[in-house]
């Protein structure tokens, strides 16, 4: 196993990434994750850090059209990419995304910590077309855990938007 512990870096890399339609130029250390870049460098704290190990889905963002766990993405490997976060789901005039509306209507959260990840995952799921039945929604939302157990209402909210 590589075990060279001699100090390296800081070695900042220039990482341009388009976030919610706006091109952002960041100077980042290579070990900065996309999640830390969004939260700490850009101040977009909507994406949450639950486990930091790809297990909970709280950090889910939509990267080049695909939902991913931002905590396991090295930002430097995504220069030139486009990221959509929970801050970018509503229309520019503030009108909420239909799924955000449905989450409110169905009371699909309690503490709200998992919600930004649920929303990004749900929006991508709707675009993928994997929300045809409640079973399908459950399976394809399995990567988003909710400690408050709001699952039935999350499934109902997604199901309602999918059926429109």
């Amino acid at each position: 196993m590589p075990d060279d512990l001699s100090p390296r870096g800081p070695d900042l890399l220039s990482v341009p990434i388009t976030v919610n339609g706006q091109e952002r130029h960041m100077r980042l250390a290579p070990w900065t994750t996309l999640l830390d870049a969004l939260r700490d460098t850009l101040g977009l704290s909507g994406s949450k850090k639950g486990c930091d190990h790809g297990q909970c889905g709280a950090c889910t963002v939509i990267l080049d059209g695909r939902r991913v766990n931002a905590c396991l993405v090295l930002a430097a490997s995504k220069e030139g990419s486009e990221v959509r976060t929970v801050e970018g789901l509503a229309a520019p005039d503030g009108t909420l995304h239909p799924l955000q509306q449905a989450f409110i209507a169905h009371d699909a959260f309690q503490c709200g910590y998992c919600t930004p990840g649920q929303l990004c995952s749900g929006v991508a799921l709707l675009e993928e077309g994997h929300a045809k039945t409640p079973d399908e929604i459950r399976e394809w939302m399995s990567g988003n855990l909710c400690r408050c157990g709001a699952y039935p209402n999350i499934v109902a909210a997604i199901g309602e938007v999918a059926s429109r």
Partner: protein
Amino acid sequence: MRPFTFSRPEAPALAIAGKDAASRFLAGGTNLVDLMKYDVERPAAVLDLGRIAGLREVTQAGGTLRIGALVTNADAAAHPLVLAHHPLLADAILAGATPQLRNMATTGGNLLQRTRCHYFYDRQTACNKREPGTGCPAIGGVNRIHAILGASESCIATHPSDMCVALAALEAVVVAQGPEGERRIPMAEFHRLPGNEPQRDTTLGERELITAVEIPAWDYGAHRTYLKLRDRLSYAFALVSVAAAVTLEGGRIAKARIALGGVAHKPWRVAEAETMLQGQAPGEDAFAAAASLILRGAQGQGHNDFKIELARRAIPRALHQAAHATPQSHVEKRIA
């Protein structure tokens, strides 16, 4: 994470030239970045493969299906060529991880993902795989998820992949490129048993880059299944999984391929069981006999003793599903 240098080679030759024992290739990052956060992986340099062209294609030529090393698990499972020619692979991929992780994870990275043994992940404990010679606390320790077949006194870890179980059943070949040129490694020889070198998961060389996997033609259609048994209905590693495919001729089994996941340091395949099934009418007796052959020598470690019986029942069930052309759905969880 510890500091490292970062580069993005633009061609396989550059990636291979830049690779040494202290560096790591980065594909989807879902295993490497995780292990770096646990300080289990401490690369001095990370070589991101993302800019290399030509590793993202799924193609078919002369019956052989070829999947590039950087094709994501999600793309492979949804690709029309995969669905048409090797739906068993799509089944297995969709039984694993989550949509988010499958969007990131790649063919090459999935092949090389490391064990989920709790001790391997915990730097505070000994582990022969992480630090050779320190011991194996899983033996006599917490070993519910560990191996029942092919384990050694040095290591009883399992390989956690679902995708690889299907690739083993389908007799896929891993294509690798290294300083000495290209090499093709059959799945059966790609992953290793732990023996007294558990630090080596595979037979891939330190400077070799996986470029693709190739799966030979075999038309089994709906006569297949990937049956994954785990602690939850979704999003959990396999305790026992079975990839099975058969073809029938005149009501008898013409060909059967079976591989098990969650039970050994590599996908477990016993050719003798497959040969035995050939020419037999599909039925519970033949399936039970196959299970006995596959599980010959199985040994529990205490907490995982149940896996032997679980596998003994899962194999006939999977063969039944394959013979009846009722593949396990990953959405509708009822087992046919």
